[in-house]
């Protein structure tokens, strides 16, 4: 197993703790950034679509397990989110993809897809599709992409692993 994979996994544990214990403290009207998606997009853009998709499923599964969520819910949505982010992977363009603008746009797209598919499995009879897209998916995705941009700016030499 590549050393980087173990490093990513070691980063995942504190990220999960942050996501569950501290991120709700910075919520804006229910909307919280998804740090797991940011980590997942970083991993996918560095390691490729196949590895990203598998990581998405694994991290989603662990998130479901440790958060008391429905088992398989985040696994499903994060697998698709990572798979989508994987379309932007290019071995020769890793640096370009890690640029603030590109990275935050990819995070936005992945977070949107993650939230949308996450919402599909909830009882959404009382909330319309427009509400699902805007309130459930769009606004959290914007917040996540802003936090993603801040993280990528704050990284030394744009690389943490």
């Amino acid at each position, binding site marked *: 197993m590549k050393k980087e994979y173990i490093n990513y996994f070691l980063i995942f544990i504190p990220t999960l*703790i942050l996501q569950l214990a501290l991120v709700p403290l910075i919520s804006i009207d229910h909307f919280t950034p998804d740090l797991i998606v940011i980590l997942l997009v970083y991993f996918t853009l560095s390691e490729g679509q196949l590895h990203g998709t598998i990581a998405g499923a694994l991290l989603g599964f662990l998130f479901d*397990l440790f958060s008391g969520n429905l088992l398989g819910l985040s696994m499903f949505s994060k697998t698709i989110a990572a798979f989508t982010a994987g379309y932007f992977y290019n071995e020769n363009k890793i640096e370009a993809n890690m640029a603030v603008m590109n990275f935050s746009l990819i995070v936005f797209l992945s977070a949107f897809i993650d939230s949308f598919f996450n919402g599909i499995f909830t009882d959404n009879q009382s*909330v319309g599709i427009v509400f699902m897209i805007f309130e459930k998916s769009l606004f959290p995705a914007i917040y996540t992409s802003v936090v993603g941009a801040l993280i990528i700016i704050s990284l030394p030499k744009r690389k943490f692993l």
Partner: protein
Amino acid sequence: MQKFFRKLLANFKEYITLVVLLLISLFLLSINNNPGIERFRAISFGTFAYVTSTVHSITNIFKSDTETARLRLENAELMLEVNKLRNHALQNEHLRKMLEMKDTLAYNLLAADVISKLTSKIEGNFIINVGSKHGVEVGMPVINEQGLVGLIIGTAADFSSVRTLENISLNVAVTNQRSGINGILSWNGQRHVIKNIPTTFDMQIGDRIETSEFSTILPPAIPVGIIVEKETEVSGLLSFIYVKPFANVQAVKNLFVVRFVKNTQIDTLETNLLKRIK
């Protein structure tokens, strides 16, 4: 043939992986109610909750105050008591003799802290720091000193997960304390609403809403909220009643679990009755 499959696998390995992983997650979703899976989830979520609980206690190191906790408990008990007395006052006007029969409710409260909030606009869930070891069971209502907050939906030894009022999956049978009109309160992602109440029914702005005696999951007479708006639908026959909960679910930190589980015998009798009617 083998070469063809090998080529197919090489060319479409990302898609094949995606489909396999999605099928696994769908399979997991379908077996969530399996007792074995539930036990596995409870153990893992309970174990990890220790970590989030530690982080929570560090972030709240300056806030812990036993006196405040005691006062909060007293407040919650008084809130339930006041609501009961309010009920009694209303009943007293009409059914003075029956009052004594009604006054038999006693609540057993267990203090708890929210250690993690998994909130989105439509699915509010909390994790609290009391569990089956403390006598918490699935289905117990969760309140604060203002009113109903949610319902226990899962327990581990030391932790429990709570489905809050701001969760579209939680529908609560409620009643208007003044007029006795019943309805189902639900969260539409933005507001709490009691749908499909005939316009002729007596539901006024400012009326207090509490849990109904007809609820199969919650004990009666827990304050829920106040009617803030009444909207009549296009046909003019039915109304949407908008309710503002007493408890500010987003800001809640300290809670109480009401150690009450609806009597299963009543549920069995109701089910049998329904079967006979059918």
